[in-house]
């Protein structure tokens, strides 16, 4: 983890949404969700994206995941531009980057057992034998602190924190190099948040995963991330190491963000 190898790079990335036409003659309004964003992420580090709601954080995450085609710019993962790949090649690339979603109550199909939920990326991205599949699911489940017997249960039998662990296990099972976590703890109780964040850090130590953590919660980002960018209205207003930004913010917006955190 000492080498400063770039694993993800965004070059002048932009994503504009056009609103539906309101008048016949006026041009429809354009929302610049992500506007000319550049950054580099170093392998094995945690990268935080901070900003208020509507600042384009989630759109950025979806662009990095290749779920949205950007209006302009490129995203390079291991120096391959993911938008130049065909759908099939991109699918094979997905082994290397997976995602954890915000809402652990919505992101797991309520009709499926944990075994098939966690094994799903495995079924699609790798050809595994039935026994291997089961043992890999159990291994991954244990690494996020759940029990072997849990594989026969349904999602509703778990608490929010446990469900988020399951979602993390699902992202981990293909042994990805990058995990994009879009607000991974904001739907959880404060007491559970710390557990999940600790888990994320432990997993980084043992597997060497690179995180891209999207959050509006500054405390979370401060706790986990090495490098941080601050976004406002689609643009990066400040970037740097977490320490620097939280102790010595330079931009006005960052200052107001930091001041907005309630202190007791």
């Amino acid at each position, binding site marked *: 983890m000492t080498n400063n190898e770039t694993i993800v790079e965004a070059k002048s990335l932009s994503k504009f949404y056009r609103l539906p036409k309101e008048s016949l003659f006026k041009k429809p309004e354009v929302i610049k969700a992500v506007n000319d964003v550049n950054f580099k992420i170093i392998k094995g580090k945690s990268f935080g994206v901070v900003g208020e709601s509507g600042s384009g954080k989630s759109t950025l995450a979806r662009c990095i*995941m290749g*779920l949205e085609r950007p209006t302009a710019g490129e995203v390079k993962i291991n120096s391959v531009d993911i938008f130049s790949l065909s759908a099939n090649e*991109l699918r094979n690339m997905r*082994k290397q980057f997976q995602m954890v*979603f915000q809402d652990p109550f*919505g*992101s797991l*199909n309520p009709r499926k057992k944990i075994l098939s939920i966690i094994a799903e990326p495995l079924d*699609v991205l790798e050809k595994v034998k039935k026994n291997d599949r089961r043992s890999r699911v159990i291994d991954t489940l244990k690494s996020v602190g759940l029990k072997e017997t849990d594989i026969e249960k349904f999602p509703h039998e778990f608490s929010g924190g446990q469900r988020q662990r399951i979602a993390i296990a*699902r992202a981990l099972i293909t042994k990805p190099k990058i995990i994009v976590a879009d607000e991974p703890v904001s739907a959880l109780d404060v007491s559970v948040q710390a557990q999940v964040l600790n888990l994320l850090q432990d997993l980084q130590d043992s597997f060497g995963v690179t995180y891209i953590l999207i959050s509006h919660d500054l405390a979370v980002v401060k706790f986990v991330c090495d490098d941080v960018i601050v976004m406002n209205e689609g643009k990066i207003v400040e970037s740097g190491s977490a320490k620097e930004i939280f102790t010595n913010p330079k931009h006005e917006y960052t200052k107001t963000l930091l001041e907005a955190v309630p202190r007791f």
Partner: protein
Amino acid sequence: MKNIFLFKLSNINSRRLDNFKKNKRGFYSFIFLLLLFIISIFANFIANERPIIVFFENKIYLPILVDYPETVFDGEFETNTDYRDPFVKELIQKKGWMIWPLIPFSHDTINYELKSPAPSPPDRINWLGTDDQGRDVFARLIYGFRISLLFGLILTSLSSIIGVAAGAVQGYFGGVIDLIFQRFIEVWESIPLLYLLIILAAIITPGFWSLLFILLLFSWMSLVGVVRAEFLRARNFEYVRAAKALGIKNNIIIFRHILPNAMVATITFLPFILAGSITSLTALDFLGFGLPPGSPSLGEMLQQGKSNLQAPWLGITSFFSIAIILTLVVFIGEAVRDAFDPRKIFN
């Protein structure tokens, strides 16, 4: 968990089954219709112009399943045996015996020994009388019921398969595909089916399968709306998005994650589509654009009842049989709908 026929039911499905059973009217309608359907499948053994078993010279013959020339039974012709012929009956009875079905007429058997001119009223031989060509009404009813229900079931299953697939594609992909498909359906739906059938009937003689195909061309649209709506809703579910982000292929997402959501709406609709299919076949037969002439059908019988008002057994039989089938199907449909309704609780 409950087991039926080796299938393991999940909790929610076993609750639905319980709810369905608790709706007594729907449940008994289902049992009754199922019984009628099973009986009608064996119509050939209930109403036939051939005996079920012939025992002749220490040998067993099965005339319903196999054709035997008359010479087998010491007759003179090498053509198929006409077992209703008194001469043949005598030949067989001399050296053996035969067991007749409950109703010794098939749907196209003409009874030449009527006591009054056709249509003749019900009597001990023709339980529900005969139609205007001297054919037994009860035999025609059994065969007609079978053909109606089979037609309805095949049409319903085919049109729901096509409808679900079309709705799924539209709802899942949305955008331009959805737009084009919806406009196509609007245009297609506005084609008047009846006139089309009248024109087609002038060109081709519709048979069972060609009629099924033509009706299918227009009946698949009934499910598209529901399934499309369900897919439009479900494609934004977090776990569907998650599945996409994990790199799962569209067809797997459709089948594994979204289709189960759409199944409830689909299954709820099925009995009502079945009722609609039976009605449309009956209507076409009534107008004379349906199954080829001579085939047993409820609509054709209804038509005969209309043109022979002096023979009320025709009209009454066909009216009540159609009414009973449709009522049973609708009762079943209501019970299914209630069973799938999570807010409905039966005690």
